[in-house]
C-alpha cells in the first residue's frame, strides 16, 4: 500500500494545478496527462485519481473565492458566497471554512461507509441486467433533464449513441458503419471524440476569462484558533452539508455539482428562515463545500464497488485502468481494496487541507499568467495527446481525422451541454449489450 503513496502525492500536485487554473478541471487535466498515465498500473492510476479528484475540490474553492471564477461547476457556491466574503475582507475565513468543512465532510463519510464495507462486498450480486439498464437510463434521463434545452439534449444523446456504436462489437460480432475500413472496426477513439465534442468547446468557452488584477490579495490564514472557532460555531451547517452532499453525490452525471448546489440551497433556506442570510454567508459556503467533498467520495463508490463510472472523469479512469488489465468493481472489490482507497483518501485530505488553507495567499500569482497563452498551450498539448495515444494503437492519423471531423460539431454546439452526448457515446456498447441480454432473458 505504501508504494502507492507517491502516486497519490503526484495526483495531489496535479490537483493543485487543476484547481488553481480556472476552467480546466480534472477531466481536461487527465486528458493532458493521458500519455503519461498509460505507464501506470491499475492501482497506481486509482491512487493518482484519488489525489487529483480530492485536491481539486479543495483548491477549486480557493480559486473561486478569490477570482470568482469556478474551476468546476461544483464551485459555484464559492463564487457567490466565498467571493462576497473575500470582498468583505473575510477571504481567509471563507477559505479556511471551505477547507475544514471539506476535511470534516470527507472523514464523516469515510467513517460511515467503512462500517458497511462487509455488506458492500456483496452489493454486486444485485447488479443484474435490469439494474444496469435502470442506472444507464437514469443517468441519461438526469443528464437530459439537467439541460436547459431538453430536445437538443435528446438529439445530442442520440448522436453520441450513434457515434458509440460505430465499429464491431464483441457480443455478437456485428459491425456498424465500418465501410470496410480496418480502423473503423475498432470503433471511434474515445479520446478524439471527447476532446472534440467536450474539452475543446469548454476551453474555447473560457477563452475570454479575465482574472482580476487589481484585487487586494490579503488573506489572513495565520490565526488558526480563530478560524477553528468560527468553523465550530457553524458546524451544524457543515454536518447538514455532509448528509445532503453524500446522498446527492450518487446522482449520476452530476455528482459533486449536485452535492454542492443542493447543500448550498438547503443551507441558504435554513439561513433565510433564521433571517440571517445575506450574500457572503459563511454557513451556506461551508455547507456547500462540505457537501462537495462528501459527494466526491459518494461518486467514487459506484465506481469502486460496481465498476460504474458516474462522472466523465471516472469513465476516463475506468477506461485507463481497464487498459492495464485492472477492472474496477464487481468481483475485484473487497475489504482490502476499500482499505487501500480509504487510506489514500485520508492522506490526500490531510495534505489538501494543509495546502488549501495556508497557501491560499499565494494564489495571487495566477493573475500574473497570460491566460490566453496558457489556454493555447493546453489546446496544443491536447492535439499532441490525440496523436500520441493514437500512435499506441498505430492509428495516429485515424485519431486525428476523427478529432478534426468532430471538432466543428463540438464548436457549433459549444453553448449547449454536451454531457448527454458524451455519456451516451461512452455507454453505447453497454446499452447494446444490456438490450441483447434483456431480449434473450425475456424471450
Amino acid at each position, binding site marked *: 500500500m505504501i508504494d502507492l503513496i507517491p502516486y497519490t502525492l503526484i495526483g495531489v500536485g496535479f490537483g493543485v494545478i487543476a484547481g488553481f487554473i480556472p476552467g480546466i478541471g480534472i477531466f481536461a487535466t487527465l486528458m493532458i496527462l493521458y500519455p503519461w498515465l498509460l505507464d501506470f498500473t491499475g492501482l497506481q492510476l486509482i491512487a493518482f485519481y484519488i489525489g487529483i479528484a480530492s485536491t481539486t475540490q479543495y483548491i477549486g474553492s480557493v480559486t473561486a473565492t478569490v477570482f470568482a471564477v469556478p474551476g468546476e461547476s461544483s464551485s459555484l457556491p464559492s463564487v457567490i458566497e466565498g467571493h462576497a466574503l473575500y470582498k468583505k475582507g473575510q477571504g481567509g475565513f471563507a477559505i479556511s471554512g471551505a477547507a475544514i468543512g471539506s476535511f470534516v465532510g470527507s472523514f464523516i463519510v469515510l467513517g460511515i461507509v467503512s462500517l458497511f464495507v462487509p455488506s458492500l462486498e456483496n452489493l*454486486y*450480486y*444485485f*447488479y*443484474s*441486467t435490469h439494474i444496469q439498464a435502470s442506472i444507464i437510463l437514469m443517468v441519461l434521463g438526469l443528464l437530459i433533464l439537467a439541460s436547459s434545452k431538453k430536445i437538443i439534449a435528446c438529439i445530442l444523446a442520440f448522436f453520441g449513441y450513434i457515434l458509440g456504436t460505430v465499429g*464491431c462489437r*464483441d*457480443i*455478437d*460480432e456485428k459491425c456498424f458503419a*465500418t465501410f470496410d475500413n*480496418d*480502423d473503423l*472496426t*475498432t*470503433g471511434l477513439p474515445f479520446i478524439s471524440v471527447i476532446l472534440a465534442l467536450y474539452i475543446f468547446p469548454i476551453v474555447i468557452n473560457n477563452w475570454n476569462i479575465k482574472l482580476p488584477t487589481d484585487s487586494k490579495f490579503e488573506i489572513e490564514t495565520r490565526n488558526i484558533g480563530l478560524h477553528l472557532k468560527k468553523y465550530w460555531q457553524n458546524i451544524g451547517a457543515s454536518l447538514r452539508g455532509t448528509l445532503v452532499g453524500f446522498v446527492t453525490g450518487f446522482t449520476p452525471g452530476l455528482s459533486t455539482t449536485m452535492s454542492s448546489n443542493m447543500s448550498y440551497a438547503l443551507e441558504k433556506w435554513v439561513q433565510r428562515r433564521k433571517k440571517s442570510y445575506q450574500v457572503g454567508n459563511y454557513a451556506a459556503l461551508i455547507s456547500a463545500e462540505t457537501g462537495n467533498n462528501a459527494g466526491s467520495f459518494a461518486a467514487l463508490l459506484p465506481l469502486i464497488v460496481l465498476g460504474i463510472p458516474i462522472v466523465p472523469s471516472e469513465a476516463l479512469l475506468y477506461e485507463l485502468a*481497464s*487498459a*492495464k*488489465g485492472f*477492472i474496477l468493481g*464487481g*468481483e475485484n472489490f473487497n475489504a482490502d481494496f476499500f482499505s487501500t482507497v480509504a487510506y489514500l483518501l485520508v492522506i490526500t485530505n490531510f495534505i489538501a487541507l494543509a495546502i488549501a488553507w495556508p497557501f491560499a495567499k499565494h494564489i495571487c500569482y495566477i493573475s500574473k499568467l497570460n491566460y490566453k497563452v496558457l489556454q493555447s498551450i493546453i489546446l496544443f498539448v491536447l492535439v499532441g495527446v490525440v496523436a500520441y495515444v493514437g500512435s*499506441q*494503437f*498505430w492509428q495516429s492519423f485515424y485519431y486525428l481525422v476523427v478529432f478534426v471531423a468532430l471538432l466543428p460539431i463540438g464548436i457549433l454546439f459549444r453553448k449547449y451541454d454536451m454531457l448527454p452526448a458524451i455519456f451516451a457515446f461512452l455507454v453505447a456498447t453497454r446499452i447494446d*449489450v444490456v438490450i*441483447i*441480454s434483456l431480449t*434473450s*432473458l425475456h*424471450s
Partner: protein
Amino acid sequence: MKKTLLSIITAITLLAAPAFAASTEKLYIVNSGSTNGTFNAILSAYATDLKTMYDVEYVQAKGCSKASAILKKIKGAKAFYISQGIQAAALPTCSKDVFQPTPDKIIASDIKFGMIFGPTGSDVSKLTKGNIKIAYNSNVNEKWLNSLDQSLEVKNTHVKYKNSTAVVLAVLNGEVDLGFVNSTKKVWKQKEKLVGLLSLNPEGDNGVPPLSGVTKFNGAEKGQVDNFFVQGFSESELVKFRKTIANLHKTDSTVGSWYKNALGYINTAVWDREDAIKASVNYVDMWRD
C-alpha cells in the same frame, strides 16, 4: 577527487555497456483482443518478460481486421501475436492465413475446456430437466448450447452476455440458473459461491465430471485454443524463440506467475513442438463447420 570521478565514469560505462553491447532486436507484440480482456493481460505479461531480450513495441489491435492489417504493415519485422482458435475456424474476418495454425508460425496454444456451472448447491439434474435459463457469451457458444439441448431433448432459454465475467456475474446474482463459459478461470475464482457441474474436458476438470458422461453428441468433448503466433521469424529463430517462451513458463517470470494463478489453462509452450502444432490444428479444426 580524480579517483572519485574515475570511479563514477567507470560505473556509468559498465552500466551502459550491456545496453550498447546487446543488439536488441525489435519485436512487435500485437494484441488482437480488447484492452480489458485476458489476451491483453497475458500479452502484457509476455511483454514485461521479453523486454529484457527484445526492443518490444506493444500494439493494441482489437479484432481480426485491425490485427491482420497491422501484421501486414509490419511484414518482415518480428511479431508475436495471439488469436482465438474458435474465431479462426468460424468467423469470416478471422479466417485469414495469419490466424490459421501452421507449423511456420505457431509457437504454442492455451488449451481450455468449457464448463457448465451453477451457484453452490445446484446439480446436473437442473440441466437435464430443462426449462431453465443458461447464460453464455459468443455466437459459437449459442450454436453449441442448441446442440446440447437437442442432445438432452430439453428446451432451455439461452441468455447472451458480453463476456465470461458477465456470465459469471449473471449466475452469481441469480438472473440465470446456470452458466456456460469457455474459460473456467473466473469460475474457479469464485469457487466458494459457484460449483462446476460438467466439463467439456473428456477427463473432467479439477473434480468436475465430463459432459460426455451425461450425453454424447458432436461437441461434448470440444476443447478450445488461443493460439500464439509469430511473424517474420526464420525456422531456426522460431525454434529459439519457442525455447525462450517455454523457459518463461518454467520459471517465476511474469508469464509464469500469471499462469500459476490462472486455473483451467493448459499451455503447450513446454510441449514437444510437433505435439503442440498438432493440438493447435486439431482444436481449431474441431470448430470448423
